[in-house]
């Protein structure tokens, strides 16, 4: 049975591209092998670890269980797309660095893409909602605390709540000087 190929037209990191792919290829295969976007990592290839998370039309997906041919017409973003023209880090990336949210770094690309979706959603997630939104990622080094804090601070900054962001303590709890206002 000879191979089936298909041309996929989509936008990757803001650039319109066209690529002939084997229909059996996963989106992770296409991004890594054809476009050399090696930030997209294969941790389990069965949709359970989140290391392959990319943003498709604004939503986080596991690219390992997403067929490359399904990317037709989609707008796809990977970590490489977040760095500025001169290689400057975006604020969510800088937060991961500042809050010590990166150890081995293998889960980081996937985590940052979901965090990018969260901080750009404009919504203010409660702590539980935030943990639930990040629950699709496995990290075996950090114990998630610093990652949670990095996302929370960036979310608050995106909402303009700069001083509140500074109040977030090491456990990720916002320590209000006076008793916590009723929410």
């Amino acid at each position, binding site marked *: 049975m000879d191979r089936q190929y298909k041309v996929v037209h989509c936008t990757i990191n803001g650039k319109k591209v066209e690529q002939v792919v084997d229909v059996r290829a996963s989106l992770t295969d296409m991004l890594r092998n054809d476009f050399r976007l090696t930030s997209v990592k294969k941790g389990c290839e069965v949709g*359970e670890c989140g290391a392959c998370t990319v943003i498709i039309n604004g939503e*986080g997906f596991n690219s390992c269980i997403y067929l490359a*041919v399904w990317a037709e017409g989609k707008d796809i973003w990977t970590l490489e797309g977040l760095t500025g023209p001169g290689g400057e880090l975006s604020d969510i990336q800088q937060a991961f660095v500042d809050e010590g949210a990166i150890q081995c770094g293998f889960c980081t690309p996937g985590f940052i893409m979901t965090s990018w979706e969260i901080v750009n959603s404009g919504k203010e997630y409660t702590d539980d909602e935030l943990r639930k939104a990040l629950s699709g990622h496995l990290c075996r080094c950090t114990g998630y605390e610093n990652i949670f804090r990095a996302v929370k601070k960036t979310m608050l900054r995106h909402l303009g709540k700069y001083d509140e962001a500074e109040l977030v303590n090491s456990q990720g709890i916002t320590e209000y000087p006076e008793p916590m206002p009723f929410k």
Partner: protein
Amino acid sequence: MYDIKALYEAESLDHAVRLLQEHPSAQILAGGSDVLVQVREGRRAGVELVSIYMLDELRGVSIDEEENIRIGSLTSFSHITNDPIIQKYINVLGEAVDMVGGPQIRAIGTIGGNTCNGVTSADSASTLMAWDAVMEVTGPEGVRRVPIKDWYIKAKVVDLRPAEIQTAILIPKESYEGCFGHYIKYSMRNALDIATTGCSVNVRLSEDKKTFDRVRIGYGVAAPVPVRAYTAEEFIQGKEITDENIKEFAETVLKDINPRDSWRAGRALRRHISVVMAERALRESISLAGGVVNG
């Protein structure tokens, strides 16, 4: 790269049906969060697939002319959870599907796929069972409707005939009107985990909210397929909302369910938590419906 023999991409529903006829051995690929994983694990290696992922016509939630809630089979879990109609009339389904896998899985997974894999642990199944959902399937002979209780034939087998595709899930008006429910998923982790046992209860109270007009309770992983505890339902039908009734109702479920031992949990544990979940889910449903126990 997936080990699949061939991939046929359907451009429309009819085209999908034709493809299934042309390739009788081909299997349907919706969101892929079950099928592609099994191809990867080898259980479905070398399979032919008909991909219906691009059929937007099978997506979305609406109220049809018969005032059924109509959920397109390709609607993803996350879209169901955030859908206003669902939140208004059957919010428990939104909560239930919001416990499937993780956010990324819920973005790709579809309710059609979740109900067609015939798996008793499917988070949506026990709730759909408890709300008497109706499966709409389309095939070479046209459209057919199957009540959910007849949908599950045996473990991993549903009433889907050759070249048929499940196109929607309907919740009849009579089934959702005035109803409030709650679903509990008992699992080891809060995400990316399969239910050890799932329990979905809904109630319709009397006008004066003192007595149970109707109570329904569905279970996942309490039997090879999702089941209803009819004996318990009949027991509590028309009774007052009292602690004893609630407790007895919970004890009665054991008559209907038949959990088994598995590496995930033993039979005794499942029977015990089934009772506890029944009581809790019922109490939550009562409060949601505005009722007061021993009121």
